[in-house]
């Protein structure tokens, strides 16, 4: 399957590859794990620190062609902007309109050795919830292939009509001895949903997601073999 690519050219320029139909992902080139630590490129990701290699996303709230995305030069922050991430409920509205999700897979490069990373994610949107109805913004976090799932949820009990901003802070402790520099995608399954009954109406949107990594330097280092 073809993917939209955000190409990284020596830390100097960013260019979009020609648009492709089923586009949900952007990636950095070249493989940063092979860069020398003495690289002189000022704005390039430091391979000794945790950084984002690529981001992919899909879901009922972010179907192909409805998302704009930006990855920062230092590969430690990203922004997704949504065109149609809206959940609504009310008389005559099907259940499927009442819950939208967008799962974001953040492929991170962890340096070898002990490291601790703060991953901060901001969710911005709008809620318009009638008295008696409930709107919810929730994100489930897990590493690819692992059953352990951590969730954070905020409920909006009507009457409520306003913008919202929710900040999630995750502490990621990585213990990696071999092979040197292991990747494992962190999955963020984001969703907004509404529960209504009778004549109640509710609307929840998610307009943007901003993620940022902050690396805490490792205490131990082990030579790669």
């Amino acid at each position, binding site marked *: *399957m073809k*993917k939209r690519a955000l190409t990284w050219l020596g830390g100097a320029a960013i260019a979009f590859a020609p648009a492709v*139909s*089923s586009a*949900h*992902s952007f990636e950095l080139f070249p493989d940063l794990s092979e860069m020398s630590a003495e690289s002189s490129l000022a704005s390039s990701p430091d391979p000794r620190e945790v950084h984002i*290699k690529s981001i*992919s*996303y*899909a*879901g*009922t709230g*972010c*179907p*192909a062609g409805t998302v704009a995305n930006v990855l920062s030069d230092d590969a430690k922050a990203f922004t997704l902007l949504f065109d149609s991430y809206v959940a609504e409920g009310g008389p*005559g509205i*099907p*259940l*499927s309109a*009442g*819950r939208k*999700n967008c*799962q974001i*897979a953040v*492929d991170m490069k*962890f340096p070898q050795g002990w490291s601790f990373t703060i991953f901060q994610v901001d969710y911005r949107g709008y*809620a318009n919830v009638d008295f008696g109805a409930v709107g919810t913004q929730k994100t*489930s976090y897990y*590493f*690819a*292939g692992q*059953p*352990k*799932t951590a969730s*954070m949820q*905020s409920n909006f009990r009507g009457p*409520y*009509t*306003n*913008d*919202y901003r*929710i*900040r999630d*802070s*995750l*502490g*990621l*402790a*990585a*213990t*990696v*001895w*071999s*092979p040197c520099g*292991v*990747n*494992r*995608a962190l999955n963020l*399954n984001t*969703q907004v949903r509404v529960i209504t009954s009778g004549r109640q109406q509710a609307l929840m949107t998610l307009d943007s997601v901003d993620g940022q990594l902050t690396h805490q330097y490792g205490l131990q280092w082990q030579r790669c073999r």
Partner: protein
Amino acid sequence: MATMSVIRMLQLTLFLGLSAQADRPKPGEVRLNKISYAGSGCPLGSVVDIISDDENTFTLLFDQYTVEAGPNVEVKRAKKECRIIADLRIPPGWSYTVAQVDFRGFANIEKGAVGEQRSNLYFKDRGPVLKSEFTGPFVNDYMVRNSVGKEDHPWQNCKKPLPLTIDTAIIVRSGGKSRALLTVDSTDGRLKQHYRLRFRRCGKQEE
């Protein structure tokens, strides 16, 4: 009313140590070659597939893997399926099996309605179908791990390697005025090389 502003915190631990077991391929030798998929729940352009750098895990994310039932909802929207085919590259002389695939999604099943998530992992002959049922009233996210028991491991044939097939489906049924919604948001598979993909040598006891 003031803008709602909320800060939530949690901690996740990533543990990626590799155990050093003998009698199995060296790390990095068994790899995921390619993931293919087809079905009403995963039409072309509605899926993103991610294979980890070490080619030991894969994730599929779905735009449209959603079923729904209720008054004024077309009957054909009550069932969808997606067949996933994982093409693995393995060193000669080894066979393998997969014991674990995770499904994550959401269910909103009203009283009187039922939802069901099914999957079936196999190489050639279909194994047992693993089913999870949601009986209304039920509103929540779900995570289902479909493991194949030790006795049921579909060992890949040594002489004629076949890709792993994962058949998945979701179905909802409702009666009267009740409504139901069931989604699959993602599917994660993991290989035993580190974790759940099991190896044995091709020996003389096999044909």
